[in-house]
């Protein structure tokens, strides 16, 4: 890294000059090494095996880049001090047009360095791409502005009571990604609308989701240095990194990194259980459906609720808050009862737009199971029944006495809505 040094004084081959160049080269190398030590500070946790390799590659590049940085800034500052124009000196500098040896050197050395980096980067890339044995396959669905994760489970079969007759019947949905240390994961990703991009900074891997294509990426989660056992499952953000519209910044969810398979399987078992044995009570079933994340409600709405061991803790801001929605549902459209307003808002969100929000919610369909936004009628009824009980003004006991919705009317409205074939 002694580029640019030789042009200073005459007799470039004298031992003194060669010695000086050697000293400067060593100093630049040491400087680069010191700068490279910043790497772990700059990056977040290393929660995947890929992170180790990528950080190491970055460290090498930071070291080399650091040396070049010090060389250029060093020559620059030295020149500005040493060769600045002195007061009253109006002479010109020496008429030096170049130095072929030097020019060859500072072309050849960077060329060799970048070729080395190409080879190194290529090896890391091939390693990361390598299919692993026994990968856990998770299907990822993205839409404006949220994520749904679908897990295969052999206990699930078509028509198992979740009301879903489509191909997702053998999968259970989750609003968050769950993985465990040491288990390689393959994400199979599709988008329902625009381009999105899946990124977990702590796992370093990123891949776009492209309309009309299925894209894949691999992650091998690992235990994170310095984290105690009781901190698990570790929670990191999954963020969207491709501009997708007004809610792009708020389009994040979480990945839960379990310490071991046991902890992960506990989560799987409870998720499967809730699909196989949904609550009989339509209100609780509606809450279960929303909590599962299958329709991505959590991506845009805020709602804090806790019942029967289920908890919703949503704080999204893209859509209007659902907190206490039952109290105001009947006031939104003059003459429209609460249950009809809520039900219609699921299938035809543009019918009434809450002031301050855009008409950007997905248009769900109940006819075609293969449609991008399929939401079967029983699910819509259950969700409506649940939302009818989301009240800030009344206690559950008071609601049991005087419900805010007419559930019989809900069923007949639902029937009529279907007959109309409005979508």
């Amino acid at each position, binding site marked *: 890294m002694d580029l*640019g040094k030789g*042009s200073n*004084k*005459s007799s470039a081959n004298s031992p003194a000059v060669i010695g000086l160049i050697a000293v400067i080269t060593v100093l630049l190398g040491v400087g680069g090494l010191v700068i490279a030590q910043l790497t772990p500070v*700059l990056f977040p946790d290393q929660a995947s095996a*890929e992170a180790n*390799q*990528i950080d190491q590659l*970055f460290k090498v*590049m930071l070291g080399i*880049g650091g040396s070049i940085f010090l060389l*250029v*800034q060093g020559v*620059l500052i030295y*020149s*500005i001090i040493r*060769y*600045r*124009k*002195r007061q009253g*000196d*109006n*002479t*010109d500098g*020496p*008429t*030096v047009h170049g*130095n072929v040896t*030097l*020019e060859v050197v500072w*072309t050849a050395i*960077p060329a060799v360095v970048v070729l080395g980096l190409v080879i190194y*980067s*290529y090896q890391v*890339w091939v390693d990361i791409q390598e299919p692993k044995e026994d990968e856990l396959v998770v299907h990822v669905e993205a839409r404006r502005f949220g994520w749904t994760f679908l897990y295969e489970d052999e206990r699930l079969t078509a028509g198992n009571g979740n009301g879903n007759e489509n191909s997702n019947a053998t999968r259970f949905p989750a609003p968050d990604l769950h993985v465990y240390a040491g288990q390689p994961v393959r994400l199979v990703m599709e988008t329902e*609308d*625009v*381009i999105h*991009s899946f990124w977990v*900074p*702590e796992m*370093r*891997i*990123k891949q776009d989701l*492209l*309309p*009309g294509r299925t894209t894949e990426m691999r992650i091998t989660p690992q235990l994170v240095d310095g984290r105690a056992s009781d901190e698990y499952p570790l929670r990191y*953000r999954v*963020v969207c*990194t*491709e*501009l997708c*519209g*007004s809610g*792009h*910044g708020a389009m994040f969810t979480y990945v839960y990194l379990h310490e071991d398979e046991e902890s992960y399987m506990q989560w799987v078992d409870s998720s499967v259980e809730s699909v196989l044995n949904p609550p009989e009570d339509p209100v609780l079933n509606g809450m279960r459906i929303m909590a599962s994340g299958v329709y991505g409600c959590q991506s845009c709405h805020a709602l804090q609720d806790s019942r029967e061991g289920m908890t919703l803790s949503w704080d999204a801001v*893209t859509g209007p808050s659902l907190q206490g929605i039952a109290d105001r549902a009947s006031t939104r459209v003059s003459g429209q009862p609460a249950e009809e307003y809520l039900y219609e808002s699921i299938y035809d969100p543009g019918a009434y737009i809450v002031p*301050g*929000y*855009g008409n950007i919610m997905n248009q769900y369909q109940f006819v075609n199971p293969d449609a991008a936004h399929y939401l079967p009628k029983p699910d819509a009824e259950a969700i409506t029944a649940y939302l009818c009980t989301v009240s800030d003004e009344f206690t559950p006991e008071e609601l049991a006495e005087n419900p805010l919705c007419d559930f019989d009317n809900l069923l007949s409205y639902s029937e009529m809505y279907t007959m109309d074939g409005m979508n």
Partner: protein
Amino acid sequence: MATASYPMDGVAGQVKRPALAEYFTWSIDHKIIGVQYIVTSLFFFIIAGALAMLIRWELMTPEITVMADGSQYNTLFSIHGTMMIFTWIVPFWAGLGNYLIPLMLGAKDMAFPWLNAFAFWLLPPSGFLLILGFFIGPAEAGWTSYPPLSTIYSPDGQTLWALSIHLVGLSSILGAINFIVTIKNMRPPSMGWFQMPLFAWATLATSIIVVLATPFLAGALTLLLLDRVAGTTFFDATSGGDVLLWQNIFWFYSHPAVYIMILPGFGVLSEVLAIHSRKPIFGYRMIALSSMAIAIVGFTVWAHHMFTSLQPELRIPFMITSMIIAVPTGIKIFGWLGTIWGGRIRLNSANLFSLGFLSLFVIGGISGVMLAAVPVNIHMHDTYFVVSHFHFVLYGGSVFAIYSALYHWWPKITGRMLDERLGKIHFVTTYIGFLGTFMPQHIVGMQGMPRRVAVYDPQFQDLNVLISLFSFLLGISTFFLLYNMVVSTVAGRVAGANPWRALTLEWQTTSPPPAYNFAGEPVPFEDPYGYGTDASKAYLDAMESRFGPSPGAEEERRPPSGALPEPQPAGD
């Protein structure tokens, strides 16, 4: 087009500037057009800069607080990026090239004066269309406008956006054809290719890129417009279209466009550093030819912008070419360091911005090589690390070069000097504001903050507040330049023909130059950077006796003979 200025041999300071009204008319004088470009682009720079201030204001909190909603925030950075690129940096270089190229070549005007005027007058409507978008729902899909966000999901302003870029693209192509023809045909007989000033080489390389690449942008925009207004489905995957088609065509233009924005800046540096270090450029041929190498290799790297969307097996070849392009850029940086080494470095505003360019651009170059590595890129892609990288090359690079060019050629264009004290304040505030704004963005990005978000992880708030505060300093720093320009125009010190004692031809005429630039046929000095020789001194003295001493060069005036200080030891 008649200007009111005529050469007054031997009498400095009595040259009249063109009347103000001329700048608001259809003129085919390249000097008028050059100034029209420069002033128009400065106007859009201020608007786009104000948008950046709003962006930074919003980002002081991790929720949406300043803007009404996410869409409104998206319009800020979409229009900020579009304006900065298409109505500030690209047209500024067209303007500077317009002003300087005929002068540097000793020509009377550009090859096609009428076409030149036409190319300029496409620019104001283009910027106007972008601004008009704010009244009908502006483009909010970023300056890259990826479909289907920019087709199915965007308001009507997106159509205006595409029309606007179409106009500015056409303007760019027409200007570039003009430059190529002018540089090829209008040099004086004694000026061979390798006696051209390096700014002309850079403009030539830039123009070749423009002519080859910009038609692809026009093609992509046409498809986008058809999808938006004519019901076609080129980019609609649900009807057989492909979203990657846009990305490929768009970046096939837009990566070379990076060099369209930076190569003229390289040219400026080669002029400014040599002239203000009083030394020949180090390795003229390597610097000239590396511009051409960059222009060629620049066409083979576009897909490194698509490392997270491109098919995985296609990423490797683009990684290789993207890393290789660092080599010709490195040649230039080392060549410039060789140029200042051993010189008599004047630390005036023009040179400070060029030296500042060197120190900042090398950081952008290093982060560029990092981003070229696919494994590193898939972590950094679309994060603030990338935002930082391209601001280091486009602000620390292009804009610093623009500032340097303004301080350097302002005396030629206006006949007045800019105030050096204000210029130094401008440099220091810009440099500190820039570093404070963009250095920490590397860290925010690596830690996990994506670009183009108004809502972000609250753990990044502290750094974002810091970044915003420095960005406000950066915003304020611009006003030192604007104020300086106004004061200089009204009451600046008279410059004279050649205040820098520069050898290139644009300085061998009055400031500002008369109509048709030169009285008689100008004779260029044999070597545009031949400083330090007796011949060059004789040439400059002859010119000084012809055009009179340059009052602007007060502190540069040679001391009385006999008082010469000991020369510094000569280089090898």
